[in-house]
């Protein structure tokens, strides 16, 4: 099976052909659908949202800038925004943030992004290094799509504790990432 690497993404940006996109589709489609289903979408909703996300990737591929983050995080952002739009908010206007607006920005993320696979592996490792209680809060937020109030209720802890665990998890993650990337 062919791999989604930065060369393939660059080639697809330049040529935009269906053959290259099939590799991207086969890699990301199951992951997006699986993530959406874990956050509460049923099969049909997840399928539709996954297709919407893949269409957005096709249409907005020229906007992806590897200096600002991994391709995977860009795909995640589009999937997340589609989820905000359709699963929970039913907005009359599609939700878009600056990362999806068709303009060039000079501001880099400030994060030193290396190879896509490498950053993904580093982040995965950094999450594993988190203390269990902090990791649980992060998982409930990112995987189960729970709000801070819902996490507080799920874990029977005050919302202030949820917030402080999130802050601590971020700081720890950032330190872990720095160490792993050094």
């Amino acid at each position, binding site marked *: 099976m062919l791999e989604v690497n930065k060369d393939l993404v660059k080639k697809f940006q330049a040529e935009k052909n269906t053959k290259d996109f099939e590799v991207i589709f086969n890699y990301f*489609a199951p992951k997006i659908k699986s993530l959406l289903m874990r956050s509460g979408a049923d099969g049909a909703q997840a399928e539709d949202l996954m297709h919407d996300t893949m269409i957005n990737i096709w249409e907005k591929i020229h906007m992806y800038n590897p200096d600002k983050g991994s391709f995977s995080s860009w795909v995640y952002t589009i999937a997340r925004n589609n989820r*905000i739009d359709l699963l929970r908010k039913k907005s009359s206007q599609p939700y878009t943030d600056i990362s999806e607006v068709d303009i060039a920005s000079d501001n880099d*993320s400030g994060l030193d992004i290396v190879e896509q696979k490498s950053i993904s592996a580093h982040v995965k490792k950094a999450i594993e290094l988190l203390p269990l209680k902090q990791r649980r809060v992060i998982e409930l*937020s990112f995987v189960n799509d729970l709000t801070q109030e819902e996490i507080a209720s799920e874990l029977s802890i005050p919302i202030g504790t949820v917030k402080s665990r999130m802050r601590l998890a971020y700081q720890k993650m950032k330190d872990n990432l720095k160490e792993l990337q050094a």
Partner: protein
Amino acid sequence: MKQHPDLSTLISYSSGTLSLAFSTLVASHTENCAHCKEIVQIGNELGASMMENAVEKKEKTQDYNVFLNKLNNKNNSPEIKKIDFDLNSEVPVSLQRYIGNHLDDIQWSFFAPGIQKSQVKISDKSNCHLTFLKIKPKKKIPEHGHKGGELTLVLKGAFDDQNGTYAAGDIADHDMSTHHEPVVSSKEDCICVIATDGPMVFKSLIANMYQSIVRI
């Protein structure tokens, strides 16, 4: 920018679990804030990692040909009118779809002496709106707390409260534990936009009675 959303708010923004109103204000602030952009990007990498490692059940429905048919149908359908975003506007890009590119275009109505208000519905969902306030210099919003969270993004001018000064682009992130009494500290009117999880609770009985009518 000196005043930022709480770290936990930025993490929740990355995970997509903030309300649409909160997400819109965090996105508006983050557009021009390198500090928060870095935090959100690390959050996005975290989300991407969760997605990468999502437990996969091999679904048969991920048929590439089905996707290509959808893509072709979309390409053949009438194009949706694109919004012309203005990067140099005083209105953040993330807010422009709701109020346009100019603060002068906001339709204000009387709220209290020296304070004008405009509410913009941003979703079909009930109670999903943003409240814009235009406040005269030196004017105070009576001391209040909140039944939920409250984010206030300054678009023009500045205000002070117990936590410091908030100028254009700054965000005040308050939760249920916070009581504050913002006062406009700029020489010009202060225009800000507020997203709340629950209504403000004023310390004064009269202000509370008024709030039950006008609702922020």
